[in-house]
């Protein structure tokens, strides 16, 4: 293994590539320098810049400072708090919706308060998505389901996810709860990790919203990797500490990543990441899959079946409470100063 490992480590030093850019210099964890591939077949797409330097800056404040000090020409994902300052300094902020969900995954194991559909619907109706958008400086899209309405997998849901406190309070009263007699739920959250933006502030807003309709939320705060481990282990595992929901953010670019892995009865932990043990018959494949590849295949079958039977609607609304879809954002210097290269 030793020799192979060394070769793998040296690979980026001499990587060739066949795209418009070639890797020129590479320092692990620090920088990658790209130069145009003069032999690229499509002359129209040959880069005009002499060099692009890519710098990994994991801290949003450090990225923002690097842009403001003129050390780099553009950054991805500036600190949300710094956006007004960036705009006032003439920076251009480009945004785009990308498939990334921030959701509460409900536990459907026996005894979970989220097993009552009225409570699930009430919670969905209680979340103030306008306030959430304001909190994030406009850098989110309120979710209507686990995929956006423009998606072919969205289906035709009968339950519209919106903010309606009166209806939410009514549903909670039907379920036997009120502000005076609240329902207590325990939620796993983390303070950072993945593309969550400001998970603590976001969760506190939800806690406040749910408090309005008689749901008292207790947080179980975990480090991000511990949260992911407990996500894989499932709601029944001791690592989930008896929580009724978990809060992992995830990409949702296809039916599997957006829906199936969370809902397929064949992917219960430890086989997969159906954390909440959601086992609607229409989501469960006929034969249990044994390996990753077969899991994907059978899950896709299950997904197709689900979409045909329009249960997507119920799945996306009733098993999820609130999801915010992230926006990719990028800030760059507005002035087009001539330079020998562009640093990212």
């Amino acid at each position: 293994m030793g020799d192979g490992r060394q070769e793998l480590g040296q690979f980026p030093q001499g990587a060739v590539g066949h795209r418009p850019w070639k890797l020129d210099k590479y320092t692990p964890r620090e920088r990658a320098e790209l130069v145009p591939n003069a032999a690229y077949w499509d002359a129209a797409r040959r880069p005009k810049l002499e060099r692009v330097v890519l710098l990994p800056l994991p801290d949003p404040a450090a990225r923002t400072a690097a842009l403001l000090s003129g050390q780099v020409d553009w950054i991805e994902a500036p600190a949300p708090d710094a956006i007004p300052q960036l705009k006032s300094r003439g920076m251009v902020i480009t945004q785009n919706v990308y498939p990334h969900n921030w959701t509460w995954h409900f536990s459907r194991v026996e005894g979970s308060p989220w097993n009552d559909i009225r409570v699930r619907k009430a919670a969905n109706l209680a979340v103030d998505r306008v306030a959430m958008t304001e909190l994030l400086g406009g850098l989110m899209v309120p979710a209507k389901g686990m995929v956006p309405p423009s998606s072919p997998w969205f289906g035709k849901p009968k339950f519209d996810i919106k903010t309606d406190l009166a209806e939410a309070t009514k549903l909670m009263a039907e379920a036997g709860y009120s502000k005076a007699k609240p329902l207590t739920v325990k939620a796993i959250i983390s303070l950072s990790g993945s593309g969550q933006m400001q998970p603590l502030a976001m969760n506190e807003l939800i806690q406040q919203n749910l408090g309005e309709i008689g749901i008292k939320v207790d947080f179980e705060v975990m480090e991000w990797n511990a949260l992911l481990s407990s996500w894989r282990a499932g709601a029944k595992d001791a690592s989930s500490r008896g929580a009724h929901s978990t809060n992992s953010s995830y990409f949702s670019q296809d039916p599997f990543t957006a829906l199936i892995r969370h809902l397929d009865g064949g992917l219960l932990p430890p086989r997969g990441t159906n954390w909440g043990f959601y086992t609607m018959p229409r989501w469960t494949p006929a034969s249990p899959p044994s390996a990753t590849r077969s899991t994907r295949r059978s899950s896709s079958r299950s997904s197709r079946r689900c979409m045909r039977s329009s249960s997507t609607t119920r799945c996306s609304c009733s098993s999820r409470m609130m999801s915010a879809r992230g926006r990719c954002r990028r800030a760059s210097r507005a002035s087009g100063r001539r330079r020998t290269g562009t640093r990212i």
Partner: protein
Amino acid sequence: MLLYLLRRVVFTLPTMFGVAVVCFALVHIAPGDPLVSVLPPDASQDLKLQLMTIYGFDRPYHEQFLRWIGRALQGDLGTSIATGRGVMSELSRALGNTLILATFATFIGFFFGTLFGFVAGYFRNSAIDRIASLISVIGVSVPHYWLGMVLVIIFSAQLGWLPATGAGPGGSSDWKWDWAHLRHVILPAVTMSVIPMGIVARTIRALVADILSQEFVGGLRAKGLLDRGVFLHVVKNGAPTALAVMGLQFGYLLGGSILIETVFSWPGTGFLLGNAIFQRDLPLLQGTILVLAMFFVVLNLAVDIVQSLLDPRIQRA
């Protein structure tokens, strides 16, 4: 002297073993699965078990520990789970970068710390003492990551005098001792030097005040020694303790700072450790902590030896 040296080195061995056990245990006690960062979200249980076997996580803890320590003694700290690169190569690069930063921070911190400490101690209860003490208290109390951000806002974002991040225009791989590279060190080194400066200043102030109250100082003055001569005696008497404090502080600085190196994206050991924690990269985390802890142990040993050279009474203790 030789016997003393030998005794000190032998005493260090159980400390080193203890440090290794703690390093190993710490990362295993922490919650979370080390394979989370490499396993795809839809990975099967079989694949997980297979990877656990490859990385040896399926073996009993004592066996994992013995294999790990055995390889570490041969200079092999394993392979980073997240990047697939050797931990030793990642670590050696980061150590070099931290050494540059620590050297500057040490120079700044110790110079000003010693200066403020001696001045405040010698002129205690005067206005100079109050100013020097105030600076050292601020140095110890101010959160250094906050200070780092403030310095970046002022000197990088607003004034544009110094760069905010990185280890030079071409990265740390082609580091040179010229202004283009040195200007990248200034802000992180100043931020890093503030705590050791405060600690050294406060220790030396107390030390000098204590020495000045001893009878031999009165004796020196009675012999007709001038202030300069008395001051030199005070310095010599205070040196062993001051050195011990500085040695420990240098050890801290060599360990890098996760917060400062993250704020300034300085590719040192702190930055590496931060990445390893967030990626739950067990081999990298264990290797980095082990090497840094060993640095500390060795540095303590070196300080003990130098102290005994300066003050022979320590050898007899």
